[in-house]
């Protein structure tokens, strides 16, 4: 995982993304290990161009797909899809056009906060909203994460 490189590439290219999922939970103080790096991304044309360009050096490919598929990493591909699970040279990256209970980038933006990570501005989903979307997802694997996030909130507020 090259988290610093990934976040720097996205920040330097001014890509509209919000860090969500396990890495956002870690940024808020969770201890649970996570391997994939999840983002909600803005779907406007200019942002899709920036996103495709910023990640191109990491050669994104469909995670779990057999090699040799006619997959082209481009803004056009992003336009044709919505959610992408990718393997890249910088780590496993999941891109979400929408998330259950949270909507898309524009809906999540007011519930995000900007922090500094690896010397770059990084936008991540707020702790309260991370809890909200985990509750909405309601998957069994989210319940343990939810417990940890709620403990973090209690610790923060004393």
């Amino acid at each position, binding site marked *: *995982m*090259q*988290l*610093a490189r990934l*976040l720097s590439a996205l920040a330097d290219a001014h890509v509209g993304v919000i860090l969500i999922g396990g*890495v956002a939970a*870690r*940024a808020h*103080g*969770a*201890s649970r*290990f*996570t*391997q994939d790096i999840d983002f909600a991304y803005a779907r406007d044309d200019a942002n899709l161009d920036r996103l495709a360009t910023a990640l191109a050096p990491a050669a994104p490919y469909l995670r779990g797909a057999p090699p040799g598929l006619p997959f082209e990493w481009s803004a056009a591909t992003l336009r044709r899809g919505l959610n992408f699970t990718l393997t890249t040279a910088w*780590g496993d990256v999941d891109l979400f056009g929408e998330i259950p209970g949270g909507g898309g980038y524009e809906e999540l933006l007011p519930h995000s*906060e*900007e*922090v*500094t*990570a*690896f*010397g770059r*501005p*990084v936008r991540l989903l*707020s*702790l*309260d909203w991370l809890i909200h979307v985990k*509750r909405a997802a309601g998957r069994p694997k989210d*319940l*343990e994460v*939810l*417990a*940890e996030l*709620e*403990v*973090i*909130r209690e*610790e*923060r*507020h*004393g």
Partner: protein
Amino acid sequence: MIDPAALIREARTRAGLRQSELAARAGTSQSAIARIERAHASPTVATLERLLAAAGCVLTVALDPVVPPDPVVAAYKRDVDVSLIRANLARSVDERLAVLEQGANELEALATAVRARRPGPR
């Protein structure tokens, strides 16, 4: 739930202000802002409103019904290692993510070493 640390940091960042600049505008010290942003101090609502106003924001509050606790989540919470959480909260966001990156790479190196020791197909 109001999270003063996140609110102040977000308002200050949106306004493009350093902690010292926000402190000067609000008539307080940079260290006071830093303590709030690190959740080491909990401001009163009046102080929070004043700091947010200095960053050009207004605090609005909404009333939502209480969400009843999920019994499964409550059971999991008893198993959460609070000492790990406290250690993480004492770190900066930068440090928390650097630890994650380092841990992921160490696990990957371990997995690679284990794969290399496995006997190949006969």
